[in-house]
C-alpha cells in the first residue's frame, strides 16, 4: 500500500467518524427528548412515529437527492449529509426510548407516584434508569446503521469513506473499494462492541 493511500484512508476515516458522531449526537439530542415527550403525550405517538417511519423507508440515495434542492437544510456538502443521517437515525432511538419507558412495570410507576415523587423525579430516578438499556440499544442500532449509510454521503459531497467506494466503483478498482469498505466495517464493529459495553455498564441491576 502506498503511503499516499494510507494517508487518504486515515483522513477519510476521520472525516467519516466526524460525520457519524455529529449525526448521532444531533439525532440523540432530538430523539431521546422526543421519545420522552411521546410517553407523556400519547396522542402524538402516531404522528411522530409515522414521520420517523417514513423517513426510514425512503431509499438513502434518494433521500440525499431530495435534500439537495432544499434551502437551509439542503445543498451540496457535509451539512446536507448530516441532515439525512439524522433523519435516518431518529426512528430506532425514538422507538426504543418510548418502548423502554413504556415497559417500566406499572406497579413500579404507581408506587413511585404514590410515594410522592414529582414528575421529574419519576423520570430521572425511575423511568430513565430502568429504560436506559433499551434506549442505548436503540442508539447502538442507529449508530451501526449510520456508519454504513454515511458512505453514501460522498455522493453529495459529504466526504468520508464513501469517497473511496464511489471512486472505486467508477474506476472498477477493488483496492479503492476495499479501502472504503474495510475501515467502515471496522468502525461499525468497534462502535457496536463499545456501545454494548456501555449498555452493560449502565444497566441498572
Amino acid at each position, binding site marked *: 500500500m502506498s503511503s499516499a493511500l494510507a494517508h487518504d484512508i486515515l483522513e477519510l476515516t476521520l472525516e467519516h467518524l466526524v460525520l457519524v458522531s455529529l449525526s448521532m449526537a444531533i439525532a440523540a439530542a432530538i430523539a431521546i427528548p422526543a421519545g420522552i415527550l411521546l410517553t407523556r403525550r400519547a396522542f402524538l405517538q402516531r404522528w411522530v412515529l409515522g414521520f420517523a417511519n417514513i423517513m426510514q423507508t425512503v431509499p438513502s440515495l434518494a433521500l440525499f437527492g431530495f435534500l439537495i434542492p432544499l434551502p437551509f437544510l439542503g445543498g451540496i456538502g457535509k451539512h446536507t449529509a448530516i441532515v439525512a443521517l439524522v433523519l435516518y437515525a431518529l426512528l430506532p432511538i425514538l422507538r426504543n426510548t418510548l418502548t423502554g419507558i413504556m415497559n417500566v412495570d406499572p*406497579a413500579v410507576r404507581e*408506587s*413511585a407516584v*404514590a*410515594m*410522592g415523587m414529582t414528575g421529574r423525579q419519576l423520570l430521572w430516578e425511575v423511568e430513565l434508569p*430502568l429504560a436506559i438499556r433499551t434506549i442505548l440499544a436503540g442508539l447502538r442500532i442507529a449508530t451501526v446503521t449510520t456508519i454504513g449509510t454515511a458512505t453514501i454521503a460522498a455522493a453529495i459531497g459529504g466526504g468520508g469513506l464513501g469517497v473511496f467506494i464511489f471512486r472505486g466503483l467508477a474506476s472498477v478498482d477493488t483496492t479503492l473499494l476495499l479501502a472504503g469498505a474495510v475501515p467502515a466495517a471496522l468502525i461499525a464493529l468497534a462502535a457496536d462492541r463499545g456501545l454494548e459495553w456501555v449498555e452493560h455498564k449502565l444497566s*441498572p*441491576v
Partner: protein
Amino acid sequence: MPFDERLLRKREREGRFELMSPLVSFQQVSARIGQKDILYDLSFDVEAGETLVLLGRSGSGKTTALKMVNGVLLPSAGAVLIEGIPTTAWNLIRLRRRIGYVIQDAGLFPHFTVAANVGLVPRLEGWQSRDIEARTQHLLTQVGLPPAQFGTRYPRELSGGQRQRVGVARALAADPPLLLLDEPFGALDPVTRVELQQQFLDLRKGLDKTALLVTHDVREALLLGTRIGVLHDGRLVFLGERSEFLKSRNKEVQAFHTCLEEKWRETI
C-alpha cells in the same frame, strides 16, 4: 390521649381548627373514568387509629376508592377530605408523602437496593443520610429482615414474602399517620400470607397508625379490620364492625358469608 398543645398550635398556624375531624372522609364521592362510572355517591369516614377494610369483588371499585385518598384519582363529584382538606386543595406531592402505600407484589424499585427502597421517602423529604440509615435499619429489623443481611440486596434476590415486608417497611419509612394497602398480601402463598397478616396486626399494635385496606378476601377483612365496608358495583352496601358484618342480611355481605369456614359461620 393526652392533650397535645404543640399539635394544636401547629394546626392553628396552618389554619386548621378542627381537631377531631376524621383522618379521611369520603363525602358523596362519585368517580367516572372515561365514560365509565366506577363509584356512586360513596360516603364514609376513616377515624384516626382504626383499620377500615374495604371488601369487594374484582371490579367493585375498591381500588379506585383507595386511589382517591392519595389523589392519584380525583372525584368527579363530591369530595375526599384528608385531615379536613379536600384532595383537590392539597399539594398532592406533600399529601402523598404523608401517606404510606403498599400494593400487591410490593412494586419495589428493581434498581434500588432494599435499603434504598425503604429510605426513599425520607430521602425525597431531605432527611440527613445518617437519619435515613438509622430509620431504614430500624424498620427492616421491625419487619423481620436483619438489615446487615438484607439491606444491600436487590428486590429480585428476595422471596415474595420478603419483598412484601420491604414494601411495608417502605410505606412506614417517613412515619406517615395513614397507610393505604391495596391487596397487600394477595400475591403470597397461604402460609406466608398468614404470617404477614399476623405481623401486620403486631405492627399496628405497636404503632399508632390509621389504615385503609382493600381486599377481596373476607377472612383477611375479618382478621385485620376494626371496621368493614363492603363495595358492590361501585356502591357501599355495608359498613360496620365485625359482629355487625357477620349478622348482616345484605345480599352481597351474605355472598361473602358463604366463603367463610364453619368456624366463622357458627358465630353468625
